[in-house]
């Protein structure tokens, strides 16, 4: 009897612990683009639904370059970069940011930017060429061989991979 109570007690204590970890694992995110949600983390897996840009979702798991997400309507896998992780923003805010980000003059246009914070404009304007600092920076210059040794020490193996090109139809 005593033993039985003990087990129940332990079980009772563990339940909250499980719930707790589940809650911690729940991460939210926002869809960065319209995309298909797939049943498995593969490009040719069957569709399990879709989400639209700006839609809030829950991130359940990460596997390689895929995220398992849960939206109001479906659960499944999408590519990592289709989702903005972290605190979700409302779609209107998101739209505002995106609009601002793309509110640019055409390529090649000259646009003046004045606002400055952080390293202040004053600081920058007052800056004078610093020979000592540039020499110090140059003193750290390494050779290609140095770089290779460093890579070997970390067991980094160079691989063949062609430079990415802009997506078709993407003026960016």
């Amino acid at each position, binding site marked *: 009897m005593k033993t039985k109570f003990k087990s129940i007690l332990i079980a009772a204590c563990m339940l909250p612990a499980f719930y707790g970890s589940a809650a911690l694992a729940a991460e939210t995110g926002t869809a*960065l*683009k319209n995309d298909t949600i797939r049943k498995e983390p593969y*490009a040719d897996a069957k569709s399990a639904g879709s989400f639209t840009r700006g839609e809030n979702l829950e991130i359940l798991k990460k596997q390689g*370059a895929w995220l398992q997400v849960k939206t109001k309507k479906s659960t499944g896998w999408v590519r*990592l*970069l289709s989702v*903005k*992780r972290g605190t979700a923003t409302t779609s209107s805010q*998101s739209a505002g940011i*995106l609009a*601002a*980000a*793309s509110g*640019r003059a055409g*390529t*090649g*246009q*000259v*646009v*003046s*930017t*004045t*606002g*400055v*914070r*952080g*390293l202040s*404009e004053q600081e*920058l*304007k*007052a*800056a*004078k*060429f*610093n*020979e000592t*600092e*540039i020499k110090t*920076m*140059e003193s*750290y*210059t*390494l*050779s*290609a061989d*140095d*770089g290779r040794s*460093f*890579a070997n020490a*970390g067991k*980094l*193996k*160079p*691989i063949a*991979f*062609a430079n*990415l*090109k*802009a997506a078709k139809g993407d003026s*960016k």
Partner: protein
Amino acid sequence: MKAIQNTQSAHGVIKTHNGLLISALLASLLGLSSMQGFAFDLKGVLKEAAQKELGQSPEAPATDAAQAQPATTSGENTTAAKASEPEFNWKNPSKEEEIALGREIAGNLLGAAPLVKDAALQKYVNSVGRWVASQSERPDLPWRFGVIESEDLNAFAAPGGYIMLTKGLYRKLNNEAQLAGVLGHEIGHVVKKHQLKVLQKQQLLNIGAGFLSDKYAKDNKLASKAIGTGAEISARSLDKSAEYEADRLGLSYATRAGYEPYGLTEVLQAIGQTSKDDGSVALLFKTHPHPDERLVALGDAIGNKLDNVKNGKTLENRFYQLKN
């Protein structure tokens, strides 16, 4: 964290200052933010160069520079050389000229934000950067990297292989693959000569428009000129397309170097979560496309190309931890 600087600003500066050039810095990397812009005023230098070019071939568009024929070029150089000191060939700058220009720009930036006094940190960043740069199309440049004293989130690249990132940005990184991605973005700007092209274009335009007087044309060396005009730095941007290109190249170089390919995108994710009202990213957001847009563009460019790339390393175990 990665910010990237935009080109737009750079152009603006130029216009505003009439010719000055510069901007340079440009490049920031990943997005970052803060540095708003740096525009270095290379006015003098550029003007000089511009003038020279002008005198020699007033109508030559900047874009033709790269195609100048060797024979013609050497003839011009000869003529110019007689005129005075070393001249800066804006139409078709040599690697040495490119490096000298970058040195001026980087030196000015360091005048505003010095290197973090931690030799082990600087050595580590140079090691990672050098290895990534070796995967680029310009492995022969004397690549050098530095972490500068600023809590802003930003990174910069100057012509010839001078690359800096802020301590604030470094602080946001969790592993070596992320650092490799950020440095790769900046390396991409240098490889594609994004800043240099902006400077060249402006300089040659000035020359063509007659903004530069003969007087300017005659004196000075590139270095003294740039320094003489002071470090008028402003926030500058590169063209947004240049930032997207640098993102693609940065990710490609880091991937070739053996790193986990998504380091750069993780940094962009982190930067994207920083409030736009946060001063540390003000410059970055002003000069670069929003991180969200950059992620979408990168995602579209990646498509399924990374599906078979496995075993990339993150190396968080040897990632250098800041002392403060």
